[in-house]
């Protein structure tokens, strides 16, 4: 087993001195970003903490002389990606990812409600063009909404979607890590995109046009 618990990892970190260019404030900032990244994907605070601690410890004890902060951050996120996928793989062996469950059912119902019986859009729910998305992507309020929408995704749906979009795995790798069939993978990814689309539309793109 190469996987260490958080307590051991922290003890190891305390015993070593990081390179001089990597001060505590910088490590703390990287750690916060890594935790946000891991927590979004794993949806488990303790697991996320362990993954981050392991990745940081590996970087700081590697003996590598990082040519500055950028190199460290790139390297340590690379390790974190692998750790997250490993953890998801391990968990899906004991608790298989199910494509269907209570939270997922309610997302599917909300999606189905957008359509008429003939599976064409309900006039009231027909997607409208989103105005000026580029400027939204530069608006910090947009990112708060986006973050909230991501956080609302059910855990299994989020894990599969994030492996695809945030860890940039191809669909085959995502299905294999989650231990699910390709067709279930497509179902989950479509569900995640539809839910996020709906959330962004309601909470951002159309939010200003609705009477309060």
């Amino acid at each position, binding site marked *: 087993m190469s996987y260490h618990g958080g307590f051991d990892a922290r003890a190891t970190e305390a015993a070593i001195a990081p390179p001089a260019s990597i001060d505590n404030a910088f490590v703390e900032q990287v750690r916060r970003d890594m935790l946000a*990244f891991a927590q979004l994907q794993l949806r488990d605070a303790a697991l996320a903490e362990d993954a981050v601690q392991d990745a940081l410890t590996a970087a700081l004890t590697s003996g590598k002389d990082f040519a500055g902060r950028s190199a*460290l951050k790139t390297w340590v996120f690379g390790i974190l990606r692998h750790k997250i996928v490993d953890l998801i793989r391990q968990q899906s062996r004991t608790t298989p990812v199910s494509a269907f469950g209570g939270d997922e059912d309610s997302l599917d119902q909300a999606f189905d409600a957008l359509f008429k019986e003939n599976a064409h859009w309900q006039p009231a729910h027909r997607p409208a063009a*989103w105005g000026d998305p580029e400027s939204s992507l530069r608006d910090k309020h947009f990112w708060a909404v986006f973050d909230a929408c991501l956080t609302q995704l059910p855990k299994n749906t989020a894990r599969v979607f994030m492996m695809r979009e945030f860890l940039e795995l191809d669909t085959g790798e995502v299905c294999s890590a989650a231990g699910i069939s390709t067709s279930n993978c497509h179902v989950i990814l479509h569900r995640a*995109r*539809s839910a*996020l689309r709906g959330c962004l539309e309601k909470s951002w793109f159309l939010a200003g046009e609705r009477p309060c």
Partner: protein
Amino acid sequence: MLNCKDATRRMSEAEDRELGLGERLELGMHLALCKGCRNYQQHLQVLRDACRGYRDELTNPEKE
């Protein structure tokens, strides 16, 4: 003829696997006729850009 619900599924799958020629043609015909689904396609693109931006914001080494 593809309905809108199936068209949304196919647009999502197009991001994850290579569609066959027949599938692409069917989707293209549907999109040519359906403004709602063309907008849905735009939304998927915005979503993809947003995911990339969000990821880069957290992992970007140059971030202050």
